[in-house]
């Protein structure tokens, strides 16, 4: 009988395959998706450390270059986690091959988890790449490794989830690049990657506190130095809440089939 095989379905294999496909997709163009962002971050590091290292110290006696490295790692991680899910989805939508993911019996939860997990993995790979390249030149401490890992994974998951939203919502590459250039880029640049917010005037310090990227980077930095601009518990609460809210929004879009199953 032709339907004997089709009686069985393993949701785990469905999820695992979609995750594997997403990883293979970015790995096949690894120069563009991993190596280039690492190089980009290292160029930032070279330029800023050369200009500012002798003039600025942070948290007492930490050199500016040492302070900068965790911020650059997190910035690269976040931007690439967003780029992974958003670019994959919009490419699939525009070329039409998204139907190969929509026709199988994969649930919206498995869909979400696979795309977000693959985004986290790409973010982590880029982050580790920046770290490895910087390591020979910077003596970077690691006071609380679990906090580092926690903020890296949560930050990647938030941006991966945001990438799913952007990839589903955008109908063309131009709209997606608006997300990247007018939202993600300014929020990361103004989040304290390049400075401690204590060096900002009062108004700008207050504005920084409504930028969730600030909490992601500050919490991540706490894991390295054991010091941060705000309490790491506050950062964890903000980042955790952002993750829950964005995941709920993404899952709700997927469950309704928004722009995917019309």
């Amino acid at each position, binding site marked *: *009988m*032709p*339907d*004997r*095989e*089709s*009686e*069985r*379905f*393993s*949701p785990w*294999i*469905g999820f*695992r*395959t*979609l995750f*594997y*496909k997403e990883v*293979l*997709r970015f790995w*096949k*163009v690894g120069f563009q998706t991993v190596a280039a962002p690492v190089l980009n971050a290292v160029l930032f590091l070279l330029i800023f450390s050369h200009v500012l290292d002798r003039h600025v110290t942070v948290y007492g006696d930490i050199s500016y270059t040492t302070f900068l490295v965790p911020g650059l790692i997190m910035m690269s991680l976040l931007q690439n986690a967003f780029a992974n899910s958003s670019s994959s989805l919009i490419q*699939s939508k525009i*070329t*039409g*091959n998204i*139907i*190969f*993911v*929509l*026709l*199988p*019996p*994969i*649930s919206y939860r498995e869909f979400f988890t696979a795309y977000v997990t693959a985004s986290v993995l790409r973010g982590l790979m880029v982050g580790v790449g920046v770290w490895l390249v910087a390591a020979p030149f910077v003596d970077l401490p690691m006071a609380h490794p679990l906090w580092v890992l926690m903020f890296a994974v949560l930050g990647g998951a938030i941006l991966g989830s945001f990438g799913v939203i952007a990839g589903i919502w955008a109908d063309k590459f131009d709209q997606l690049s608006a997300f990247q250039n007018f939202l993600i880029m300014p929020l990361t640049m103004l989040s304290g990657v390049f400075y401690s917010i204590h060096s900002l005037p009062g108004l700008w310090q207050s504005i920084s506190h409504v930028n969730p990227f600030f909490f992601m980077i500050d919490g991540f930095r706490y894991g390295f130095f054991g010091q941060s601009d705000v309490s790491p518990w506050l950062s964890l609460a903000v980042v955790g809440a952002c993750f829950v809210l964005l995941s709920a929004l993404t899952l709700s879009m997927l469950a309704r*089939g928004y722009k995917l*199953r*019309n």
Partner: protein
Amino acid sequence: MTPAIRIDSVTKHYGAFQALAGVSLEVAQGEFFGLLGPNGAGKTTLISSLAGLTRPSSGTLEVMGHDVVTDYRRARMKFGVVPQELVFDPFFSVRELLRIQSGYFGIARNEEWIDEVLDNLDLLPKANANMRTLSGGMKRRVLVAQALVHRPPVIVLDEPTAGVDVELRQGLWQFIRKLNRDGHTIVLTTHYLEEAETLCGRIAMLKAGKIVALDSTRALLKQFASHSLRVRVTDADAALAVGGVIEDGSWVTFGFDAYADVEQLLARLREAGAGVEEIQIGEPDLERVFVEVMNRA
């Protein structure tokens, strides 16, 4: 026996536009079924609704007894679609794509069946080629292979031979016929009506989101199309008095139901003074049925 496909009072609106206006239909297991209609009739919307790509505004759809919304996992496991558009993922080779597609359907090890499908579709030499390097015909074959990786009992082919050369078309139909003989239910949409006439045992015709004809191919041919008698005559005006239609110059066409009518027609032409110089007899075909049904609806 549970029908392979059951569609009950399905409507679909896109704003003010009604793509499906209360479609009800059953396709039995093992059938080779044709879904025909002009562009915009609602064929692809109906197929997309069955596949879960489109959500109907109202009504229910089942595949092998499983509701496509409430029991979507089982319904999709039993359903394979060859889409109309020539879509592909440019990142992967043919074999990688088929492995990935198998995994999406929860099948971890599927090499034996993948090889069999590749072999049947003459794709084995291209198994490790990237999708971007394949010709349009080859990409179409890969789409068929992707629809079959999970051995679905119900297979829908949405205009699978559009823009495909004769050799591939013949090979494809040979393979699809084999699948049908093995027990798979096949639903075909096509604009090549001679294909539908040859392959499909039963046909539904859609117009403006409604089914306007549903019957066996033989019954439709019998009901809507008559044989035609084309006669080249010495005096076309005289032939018109017998009831024919002038096609060009001296050729006049008459419709008839039984071959016995031909003798009478020729006798009447003689009596009317239209000498017969040449005769052609045309069989009823689905194209005439289609035009007739669409004009009446």
